[in-house]
């Protein structure tokens, strides 16, 4: 094996761009679709980083893909069991707490961070960030992954509380497009999931339909 391939057999990283934003009546959770190995090899152009852990609760993942899949699989199982015991759909906070317990108690071994977002009957739309070491934080919008560093200015300037659905979709698409435009390990298509009380809608914006900005 030559040197480059040996390096690439290391962690399959999701250096990525993920975001979640609350709008009037729901949340949008979104991500790019690139998975990379090492600095220059794109191992997948169409990976799905938006994992459904319950009917109205989604997680998006950043960091080691293997760790993230293991944690979300475990969380999905625990959440489903919890929801059946409670005889009602789980709270978004409960889902985020389960992920947090898993991340915190296994912090030595794991290298994955999550954004958990969804809708529940009690508090409506919510977004929780579960970071690498197991911190849990609730926010009105949040961005994550390596591509997020390029769009902090944009989201800080453009976010408004209580946006309409159309405004929120435009906001998310623009943010992801800008990040993907500058970050070499983010790219592909934009995956968005819109979660409201009534339904869960998956929106895909392919690369050639992304908004264009002056830098291009």
């Amino acid at each position, binding site marked *: 094996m030559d040197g480059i391939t040996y390096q690439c057999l290391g962690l399959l990283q999701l250096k990525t761009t993920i975001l979640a934003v609350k709008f009037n009546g729901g949340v949008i959770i979104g991500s790019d679709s690139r998975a990379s190995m090492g600095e220059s090899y794109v191992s997948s152009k169409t990976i799905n980083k938006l994992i459904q852990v319950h009917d109205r609760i989604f997680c998006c993942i950043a960091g080691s893909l293997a760790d993230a899949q293991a944690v979300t699989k475990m969380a999905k199982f625990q959440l489903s069991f919890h929801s059946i015991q409670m005889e009602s759909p789980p709270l978004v906070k409960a889902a985020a707490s389960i992920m947090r317990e898993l991340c915190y108690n296994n912090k030595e071994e794991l290298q994955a961070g999550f954004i958990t977002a969804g809708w529940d009957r009690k508090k409506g739309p919510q977004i929780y960030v579960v970071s690498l070491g197991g911190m*849990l934080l609730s926010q009105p919008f949040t961005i994550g992954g390596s591509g997020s560093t390029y769009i902090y200015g944009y989201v800080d300037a453009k976010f408004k509380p209580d946006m309409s659905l159309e405004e929120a979709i435009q906001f998310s698409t623009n943010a992801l497009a800008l990040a993907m435009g500058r970050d070499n390990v983010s790219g592909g298509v934009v995956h968005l999931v819109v979660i409201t009380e009534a339904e869960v809608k998956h929106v895909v914006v392919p690369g050639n339909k992304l908004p264009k900005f002056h830098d291009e």
Partner: protein
Amino acid sequence: VLPLLSHCSLTMIAVQMKSHCEYDLSASTFSPDGRVFQVEYAMKAVENSSTAIGIRCKDGVVFGVEKLILSKLYEQGSNKRIFNIDRHVGMAVAGLLADARSLSEVSREEASNFRSNYGHDIPLKHLADRVAMYVHAYTLYSAVRPFGCSFILGSYDEDDGPQLYMVDPSGISYGYWGCAIGKAKQAAKTEIEKLQVGVNILYIHIDIYIVHDEVKDKAFELELSWVGEVTKGRHELVPKDIKEEAEKYAKESLEEEDDSDEDNM
């Protein structure tokens, strides 16, 4: 477990019903008519204790416990029979107090673990089911005895409203609008049934005073607690001034009732 004939002859003298013989020695044995006597005996232990009442009102839950004072040397307020399980849950007990204390610890751990895992207050139905499962486990084996206490759990939540559940030594939990456990539970239940939905704590006092008189014990101390909109969802002992006002009202109502022939509720 083979029945011991010598033991059986002794119990035949002591026990009235012959069918109890051989089948009541352990919780792991059914009687021929399908009863587990050990569990029934545990429920008798509850019936020997003084009364505890819980009422689910439209904006909260109230507990009242009649604590019989067996000695003038008892410190007032000791031997509490109402426990805080979590900020929003209260538990009133009747039966063997030591068993009840142990179960309150179990409930506390259950509520605390839930909060630690899921990040929010435990729903009362779930807590009642979990503790009932624990109580039930002790009715399955001959190596342990069933818990000799019943308890009433109550909570208030903005979204789910007031909730009241009762767990008995057999390990079942029921939701109630109003329930009573202990010596005078039948009389208390009759009084509670007369109440309309949506009352407040004054009526708990009247109930306890009425059923206490019927039992004809000497002095008693009343322990009152509530959880509801008025306490913002926290379970607390009723403040002294409100308690005294309610006690006064109860005593006056009882005197009126004694004087008049008809029932003034």
